[in-house]
């Protein structure tokens, strides 16, 4: 039996005290232990940002890439190595701003991997700027002192309409529930999206109140695509703890027909 600690690398996280990402790390190693994944068969891929540091802290194969590109990196790996369990992880800025286009196409493409988004509605690594999920009237950043004035991104609604076939939202303050959902997401064939509300006590101290504000997603929301969409359109983003939508659309994979002789290619050019 591999216990959760055996999935830890021992490298000390750079995260601030009280960061929600610590719980995500625990939940992830608990999920891996629950699934008894051989560490060498797992790859955890990230971009840039606080949460994107997570691969270094986990004793699996990891890749800490460049800002916004976790999903294409993970996609290339999974397509070339379908035998691996591939997880992508990162934050709201990385995933929905600089990496936004990849998010849309990852949902469409439906490669069998899991995308873990630690959403704290702020860029923490660059010290407190608005992200795509930040409310338009948040004035806590010197870069947008009057607020962004922009509609906040709704990641799960977007995931739903662009074709993701497993969608869940969790709260890092409930790591047991989070680990259960991660287990389901990793097991699910196809692209699974898990948005995790993960407070940033440094730049968004008011998020400490999330623990009093979150509520469970109602049963009625999860029945089908339409009810999930209707629920997400009306939700304030603080409903958590459930798989919102799940379908069994066939995952995208590359067919590799056969291993032929390379010299056969030459024949095409012979006159």
């Amino acid at each position: 039996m591999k216990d959760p600690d055996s999935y830890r690398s021992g490298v000390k996280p750079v995260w601030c005290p009280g960061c929600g990402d610590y719980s995500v790390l625990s939940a992830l190693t608990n999920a891996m232990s629950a699934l008894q994944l051989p560490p060498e068969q797992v790859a955890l891929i990230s971009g840039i940002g606080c949460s994107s540091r997570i691969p270094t802290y986990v004793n699996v194969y990891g890749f800490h890439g460049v800002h916004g590109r976790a999903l294409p990196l993970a996609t290339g790996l999974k397509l070339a190595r379908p035998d691996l369990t591939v997880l992508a992880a990162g934050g709201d800025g990385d995933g929905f701003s600089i990496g936004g286009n990849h998010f849309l196409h990852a949902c469409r493409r439906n490669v069998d991997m899991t995308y873990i988004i630690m959403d704290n509605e702020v860029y923490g690594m660059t010290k407190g700027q608005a992200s795509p999920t930040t409310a338009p009237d948040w004035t806590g950043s010197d870069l947008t002192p009057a607020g962004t004035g922009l509609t906040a991104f709704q990641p799960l609604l977007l995931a739903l309409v662009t074709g993701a076939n497993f969608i869940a939202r969790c709260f890092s303050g409930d790591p047991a529930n989070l680990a259960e959902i991660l287990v389901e997401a990793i097991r699910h064939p196809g692209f699974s999206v898990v948005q995790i509300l993960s407070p940033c006590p440094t730049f968004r101290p008011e998020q400490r109140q999330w623990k009093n504000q979150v509520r469970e997603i109602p049963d009625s929301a999860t029945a089908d695509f339409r009810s999930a969409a209707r629920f997400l359109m009306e939700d304030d983003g603080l409903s958590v703890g459930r798989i919102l939508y799940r379908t069994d659309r066939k995952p995208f994979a590359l067919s590799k027909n056969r291993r032929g002789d390379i010299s056969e290619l030459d024949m095409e050019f012979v006159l």
Partner: protein
Amino acid sequence: MMTTNIQDRNSARLEGTGSSISVALAGSGGTGAISAATMLVDAAGKAQWYALMTRSVGAQIRGGETAALIRFSTDPVAGHGDDFQVLLAFDWQNLERFASEIPLSANSLVIGDLDHGAAPEVIAATGARYVGLPLKQLARTIPGGRPNMVGMGVVAGLIGLPLEPLYSVLENFFADKGDKILAVSKQTVAVGYEAAAALGDEYRLPPAHTPSSGKRWSISGNQATGLGALRGGIRFVAAYPITPATEVLEWMAGALPGVGGALVQVEDELAAINQIVGASYGGTPALTATAGPGLSLMIESLGLAVAAEVPLVVVDVMRGGPSTGIPAKSEQADLNIAIYGLHGDAPHLVLAPNSVTDCIFTTQWATHLSETLQAPAIVLSDQYLGQTKAVLDRPPDIVFPTRRELASEPADGRKYLRYADTPSGVSPMATPGMPGCQYTADGLEHDQSGAPSSRAEDHLAQMNKRARKLADHDYGDYWADLDGEGDLAIVTWGSSTGAVREAASRWRKEGGKVRVLSVRLLAPVQPEKFQQALAGVSRILVVEQSHGAQFYRYLRAYYDLPQQTRILHQPGPLPFRPHQICEQLSSWRAT
């Protein structure tokens, strides 16, 4: 009299490379100029000649004006000559747009369709002899016949290409169209062939050398690049279409499954480069192909591949720039971004093929080097090489034995160090699935284990390691092609090499001595080998197709050049003509 005149000019011009005839076929979209030219090129190959064909098109997506520029030759050819002996125009629509790419002289023959009237002023002004033929009317004598088939027959008759190989190509081309269409096409070609008899025999190419050197290949530079990549071991490709690189990707999409590989079309260039980083990290040699604007978008992640030490190949089929520039025409002006574009000190490989055949070798070698040295390689092809269809001798098979150095499972208790500071600088690479070697690949500076580190010592050690593994590698003689002797040298690279070699052969025919150095490995630089190759040289002419003399400035930065160094540089899209280079050498001798 014109007979001997043209033949003499050609044989004089091509001493050492045999005789050649250059023919342009032009017409508005749908006239079939390109398909006629394609079949003529393949037929010439079947007749044991050599040939190459470039295409010139306007800015339209489909239709519009097109020209196929062909050079038929008794010996291998690497580029166009000084001018065209024959221009056959199915009509004159917008011909002036690429008239500058079809230089004509008083010795040239221009054939037009009588239905389309006299040649436009830009053609008439060249002084070329004009002959009108009723191409359309001749085609109508065969029910279902098309003027481009007549034109094909006219060109074949003019240059002395036998009908048999042409028929054989038609049989392949119309294989699935039915016997009737094939019979009509053969008859229509025969009509054109007969019509050519009235035009004289002064444009006939001498018969092919015998005994022949075996079966010829017909291949484009972009296909050759794809083939070289597969020979080198590439098995994963991420593709985002861009002119003129798309054909590399299209050819590989068809070829990869047969060798156990795959291609995926992705959402943008950033996805393309990052998908191949992921695939290669997983152990599958991977490639993408793009052109200048796409290369710009990929640069950040090329740096990631440098830092994380992930092998991969990016083929940049250069086109006219900056920005969207002239997408369908050639230039050698991405040299600076390929060498200097990455932020930080980021040692990587930059290579350039110098002929269509060499697209195979250079891409194969680039893959080998990238895998061996765990560093990204940029291959700088260009539109001229990539979109040239060439008839050539079967390229040799080359096998590079060494591969990516893989880690073994660490002995008990010892930690696997992905970025171990080895003497060669190459660290054993583990791929996911290997027990006990879990590590995090990182673009962030790291220590030997891969853990992020901002310590000065770790940064210096990793910088040294990444530089050393490229600098200390023995690249053998492949770093450049050198031929000739003497104290005068032409130094060039990439597609300009073809015109340079032809100019050098003329120069030698006139009793001059000249060395030609075509640099294939642009980074890392090879100053010692450069000095050896040019020992005793007192004058250098640098030839490159860029407005800013990028290659010359690169040479100035890294190599010792003699006091007497000159530059012949021009932007695209016009390729160098051999006479331009000869004129430079002559003017130098005069001073």
